[in-house]
Every structure is written in C-alpha cells, then in structure tokens.
C-alpha cells in the first residue's frame, strides 16, 4: 500500500462537507470514512479534523448534536446546515475548476 498522501491545503473542509452531506456522522466515523472513501490514499489525523469541524461549526456550516450510538456511547454527531449545503456547492464548483485547470497543465507537460 502506498504511503497516505498529505491533504492539500483547504481540501479538508471540502471533504468534510461532502461526507456530511450524505449522512450526519461523528468525528471518529468521519475520520474512518475519509480513509475508506479515498481508498486509503488520504489519511486525516484528529489534530486536523477536530479543529476543522469546530471551525465549520463556528462559521455555521455544520451543526452538532449529542446522540447515543449503537454501542451505547454518547457521541457528538455533525450534520450539514443549509449554509453548509450552499458552501459545499460553491466550493465543489471551485474545486472542479481548479482541478480541471491543474490536470490541463499537467497533461500538457
């Protein structure tokens, strides 16, 4: 297996928003899912994830609530707000433009 790739600056917010769009989830599962969905290419550590979550919560893009999990643990579950959805759309578009431009440059070389 290849070494996990570092996250590009600014991409973590996008990833978090995207994963929360499909399903509200807690911090731990979110970290696991990032790893799984990206086929182990991306690995996010708690030190980046929680600050990102709090930052998003502070900006009103996600909201948090305490819920009981299947294992009986109390967990803080994050979900997307309306503002979060809007932000996700615009960031997704921006990313697509950026990625398109980047792959264009790389292909040319």
């Amino acid at each position: 297996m290849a070494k996990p790739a570092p996250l590009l600056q600014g991409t973590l917010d996008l990833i978090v928003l995207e994963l929360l769009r499909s399903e509200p989830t807690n911090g731990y599962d979110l970290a696991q899912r990032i790893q799984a969905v990206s086929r182990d290419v991306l690995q996010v550590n708690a030190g980046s994830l929680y600050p990102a979550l709090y930052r998003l919560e502070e900006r009103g893009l996600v909201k948090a609530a305490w819920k009981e999990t299947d294992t009986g643990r109390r967990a803080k579950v994050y979900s997307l707000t309306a503002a979060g959805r809007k932000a996700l759309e615009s960031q997704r578009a921006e990313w697509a433009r950026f990625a398109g431009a980047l792959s264009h440059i790389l292909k040319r070389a």
Partner: protein
Amino acid sequence: MLLRLRAVFLFGRMQREMDEEMRAHVERAADRYMARGMSRAEATVAARREFGNATVIASDARDARGARWAEALVTDIRVALRAMRATPALTLVITLTLALGIGATTAIYSIVDGVLLRPLPYRAPESLVVLHDVQRTDRDLPASFPEYVDWRQRTTSIFSDVGALIWHGEVLSGSGDAEQLQGAETSANVLSMLGVTPTLGRAFRADEDLPSAPRVVMLSDDLWKRRFNADSTIIGRSITLTGQPFVVIGVYHASPTAVLPQGNTFAHGKAPDFWEPLRLSERNSPRGVHYISVIARLRPGVTAAAASVRLAAVEGQLEKDRATTHGIAMLPLATELVGNLRAPLALLLGSVVLVLIVACANIANLLLARTTARRRELAVRAALGAGRLRVTWHVLLEGIVRATIGGVCGILLALGTVSAARHFLREIPRISEVTLDVRALLIAAALSIATGMLASLVPALRASRGDLVSDLREGARGVSGGRDRVRHALVIAQIAVSFTLLVTGALLGRSFERLTHAPNGFDPRDLVTASTWLPDSRYPDSVSQIAFNTRLGDAVARRFGATNVALTSDLPVGGGTSGDITIVGRVFAAGQAPMVQKRVVSHGYFSVLHARLVSGRLFAAGDVLGAPHVAIVNEAFVKRWFPTESPLGHQITFDWNTSGPQTIVGVVADVREGPLDQAAPPAVYAPSEQVPNTFMNMIVRTDRDPSGVEAVYRDALREIDPALPVLQVRTMSDWIASGIARRRLTASILGAFAVAALLLAAVGLYGVISYSVTQRMREFGVRAALGAVTGDLVRLVFTQVAGWIVIGVAAGAVAGLAAGKLVSAQLYGITQTDPWAFGASAVLLAIVGGMAAFAPTWRAARADPLEALHAD
C-alpha cells in the same frame, strides 16, 4: 464580572464536551485495534499515538472556535502548568530560587528592621542617650547615685533632661494571690522624657523622688485591668507592694513595644507593670555602688559629637572635684538596647541585596537558557502559522505562572521564618515587634518576577519576530558567545557572593560555638536556678535576712541533698554587681583602685559549680555571723593585686554592706563572674551566713527539669514565708544562652543568608552547567566518536566548573577579608582570617558545586556519538 464568570463557566462546559468527544474518539480507535488482536493496553497506546497530542489539538481546536479570552486564559494557564510539569527540574529550581529569593530576604530584612532599624517607641527617640560610668579598666558600668546627681547638675548645657532608672521588682499582695511584678524606679522626669503620659490620674511631681516624699506608684493599664478591674476609683487609693503601702496616682498605657534599659542588660519587650519614684540619697546609695541606668535627652541643636566634647570637659572637672577616676561615656539609647550592630547590620543589609541579586540572576539565567533552547520550537510554531502575539503570550504566561507559584512559596517561607524567629529567638529584644515587612516583600517579589518575565520575553519576542530561518537552521545552538560570557560571569559572581557570606557566617558561627564552649570555670550542665526577693520592710536586718537565706537553702537541700544546693547574690556569666574594695595596707594610685565583682555565696557554691580550689580553704559551716569575717578571691584577683605573694591572710574591705575588714582565706580558679565574651574579672566572695543579701539566687544541681525544682522551691517558700514570689526558674544553660542572644541573632541571620546564597549558587551553577552541556552535546558526541572516553568528557565539564569555582572563591575571599573586618568586633577566640572558616567554606562550596554539576556531567559523559550527530 458576571459576564466574565459566565464565560469561564460556559468555557468549562465546552471544555468538558470537547474532552468527552476526543476521549470517545480514542476509545473507538482502541476498540478497532483490539478487534485486530491487540491487548487493551497496547490498543490504548496505539490509539493515543494515532490521535496525537490531545492538549495541542484541544488548544488548536479552541483557537479554531475563536474562543473568548477568558477561556483562552484558563487553557493557556493549563498549558503552562503542563509545560512546568514536563520540566520538573527547571520548575523545582525556579520555584526554589524565587521562594528563597523572596522569602529569605524579606523575612530577614523584616527581622533586622524590627529589631534594629525601627525607631524606639519613645518621643523623639533619636535624641535619647544613655550615660555610663567608665573607668580605665572597666568599661560601661552603671552609674552610682552620687555620679548621677553630679552629671545631672553639670550637663545642663548638653542635655535638656537627665534621668535615673533602676529595674525593680515588687510583690503585689492584698487582693487575690501575691504576684511578682516587674517595674522601674525612676527619677520623676523619666516618664515625660520618654513621652509616657498617664491615661488616668497624673504623673510624678518633681519632688516625689526625694527620700522624704510619701510613697506613690503609677500602674500599667494591663495591671490595672487585670488586678483592679479597670476601676477608676483606684486613683488615690493605697495598695500594698512588697509589704509597703503605696498611693496609686496614675495609670499609663503599657505599650507592648516599650523596652527599657535595665542595668547592663534589658527587658525583653515586656512593658513595666509599674513606675515608682526613685527615692535615693547619697546616704543610702554611696558612690561605690554602681547600679543606676542614666538616660538623657540631648538639647535641641546639640549633636552627639558636640555633646561628647562637652562631656569630656565635665569629666575633667569631676576628676578634680571628686578625686575620682571614673569618667562618663555616652551612647545612643538604641545602641544601648540592641548593641552596636552597625557593622554587622551593614553586612546583613548588604547580604539581603546580594542574595536578591543572585536570585534574580539565577532566574534570568535559567529562563534565558530555557527560552533560548525553545527557540527552535517557537520558530516551528511560528512557521506553522501560530500568531506572533500568541507565541509570545504563551512564553510570557509560563513565566508569570512560574513566578506566581514561586512568589506564593516565597511569602509562605517568609511568614514561616518570621514566626519561627519570634519563637526561637525570644531572648532578642524587640523580637516580638517583628512582623513581615510588606514593602520589602513587594519589592523582592516585583524584582524577581519582573526579572523572570523579562528574561523569558526577550528571546520569545526575537523568535516570534520571524528570524525563522536562522533559528530553524541553528536550532538550539544559535546562542552568541557574548551571552554565554554574561551567563558565566553571573555564575562566578554568585559563587563569590555565597563564599563571602559563608565565610562571614562561619566566622560568626565559630565565634559563637567557641563562646558557648568557653571555659566558665564551672560545669553548667544539670544546673537549675531560682530566686526570690526579700522585702526590706519584713527582713530589715542582717540577722533576719541571713536566717531566711539559710532556712531556704536547708529546706531545698532536704530534697536535693546538701552537696547539690547553693546560693549566690548574682549568677555567674552575667552582669553581676561590682564595686570598689580597699586592700588593707595598700595605697593605690589614681585609677588603680581595685574594682571587683562582689558575690555573696553560700558555702556550697564552689562545690556545686564544680569550681576548683587553688589554695587556702572554701567557706565552711563555722563562717557565720559573729565569727571572724572571711573572704575568698579568684585567680584573676590574685594575678592583678597579688602577682608575687600569696593573698591568704591579707585583709580587704567592701565599702558596701559589711562592717569591718575580711580576711582572705582561700583562692579559687576563676568562675566567669562577668560576661562570657570577656576575660574573667577579679572577684571577691563573702559567705552568705556572714553577709546579708535580700536577693539570692539558688543553684541546684539536678537531672530534673526546672519545673521539678520550681515545685520544691515553691513548697519551701510557702513553708517559710507564703508572701514571697518564685522568680526566674530556669536552667543555667538558658541563662548563659540569654547572655549571648545578640551574637546568636547575628550568627543565625548571617548563617541563614549564607545557606540561602549557597543554595542559590548551587541552583545557578546547575542551571548554567546543565544548559552548557545541552548546548555542547553535539560536540561531546563528536569527541566520543573520535575516541574520547567517559573520563575525558567528565574532565571537560569539570574543568570548566572548577575554573568558575576557583575564580569565584578567590573573588569571594577578597570580599570575605573585607567583611571579616566589619564583624571583627563580634569575633571571639578567632581572627578574621581564620583559616578554618575560609577552608571549610571553600570545601563546602566545592562539594555543593560538584553536586550541582554532577547530573549534567553524567549526561555529557554518556554522550552517544550517533544520537549527538543526529540531534541536528
């Protein structure tokens, strides 16, 4: 305020939730690892490692939330506390330094200030002086009554007032139990001279100190409340003091701080219970009896120097008019009460400043070293985007938290020291006035804390200013040589200061030690003393006084054995009673008349004290009233006046209390009948069954404690005369100790400073060596790689340490010689260049220095070539 509290409260909840969330994360990660077959412990460790540093994450997470400042403050303090826990050695060392620096200096300054510096509690105390009688051979005698009269009459141009005072005991009886009181007999003007005014009734009238005046007394308000229920009709009523009626004319406020001169010694912070007028005349108090303290107030505008010059003229006149060789000496009252401690005082205050400087230097050194070592970490944090203010703030806050903890320890130490001093140094005059000096505390604390903050702030500001590249590249080695030199100079200065204080402390301590072991001519162990006071009114003549003393001695001897009980008019190793004698058949030149210590003792005195008979005989049962008058002299007496012949058979005369000449029947080895720090004075002893005395001390040789003796003594008194009080029951050792209390104070204060300075120097040395070793680990690694063995590396570090110590000790020795000169008057039995004091201090310093250097040296010695090379 409420908002702030709310913020902190909310913050607390947020913090708890965040903690819980992160804990849950770690637990679930651990479950995952366990599912893969790890043990719980392994899984927890792995989960934690995966999670990362919870503290930092929490802190960053909070930053992300834009936490309010109150929340941030609490967290940051926690981070600072955690940083302190992570560096326990540094934390301990800084706390210790601050505690010592603030605590020791403040406490000691408070004691010095309270005992020595604070003005006496009298009106215009600076112009009060004490006058002493001086003779060529005997300095500082109390005055005799005729001298007092002469001085008062002839010094009106120098002093606005001259007064006389005798410390005096009375027994109050009549209402309730008989009680021993301590008070003073004074000339009528002393109260107004000291500024004591009655709170009730009136003070003495000018003519009330004449022998013909009716007996009057003023009472302290303490006594008045305690014994007379604060009854204001007491004025004008008669009370009974030691069997005599006295009319109460006034009540005064007994300030607990009043200290009064008492002959050659002083009363310890206890205000007199009463004042009585001194009703003396030349008839009942001849020129040869020296027992009066003379106090005077300088006229406005007359300086002490001018007064001395004019006093010398008065002295010259008196010498002619009275055919006397006795002169006058003048001392400021404050000097009389606490001694001439100007020189040691300068040393003590200097020490306070030095210790404080050393403490500040230490803190600066340690924090400078720590912050410099953290420059790389700080640079990394700045590179990762931490705000400049934030980084600086973290460093500053750590300094503040450390300083606060150290400061609190310092205050506790200061409080503890002051209360310990009040408890253990009780014999020091005015010690009860000592309280913690808040100004000194604030100054010391502010200095140390400001130093700490400055020292940590400077490198932090530098690091945050973005000199990142060089800091990252150089890492912890990026220290200029200049700063190293300053650091090393500070350490050398610390060593020098502590050496100076050690030497001075050792000189004084050794003097004190020598003094306590000075040969007294007797064995002070297992001796207990007690005394009582016979009122003249009920024991008016020799027969009744002698009979009483004999009966009391016999009664106590029944319990302790006749060979273990003795009586004496004055305890040895004290001021005693001195006076002129004449030697029959001798004529003395002016100034050479014999002045001796006079003692009235029972015949068991010498054997109970284990004193040695040199020639002749001791007193025996036959030396009683009516038998031929006999006396015993000591070797100092013989050396002085009978250097070539035997004194046995010669006759002498006291000009006091005896009738007819006494024949010398024995010579005893010197029992120290004067102060411990002076050579044994010539002494003459008379038998107590032949010469009366109204104040006798009993000495009992026993292994029982003083209370056992007191019970027996009290029973004996009750049997003979229930109205008499039991006075001053104590061990002989306590009595001796009280005579050298002043020396003990100076020695213990300087000793405390020396220990504080030594600890600080050790701490400083440790800090600097430790830092230097850390800096040079790479160098040591390279050396190790090139084949240096452990011994080489140890030598490398120790050579540097030894160099510092040698230079420091050399500088300290020079200062020590100067300081020794300051305290030379306090030395006993050694000189100020005492090699033992210097040698022991140097050895102690070397040992402590070596211990401080040990741990860092050990680290250097185990320098791993690989690790050292990887370090950067």
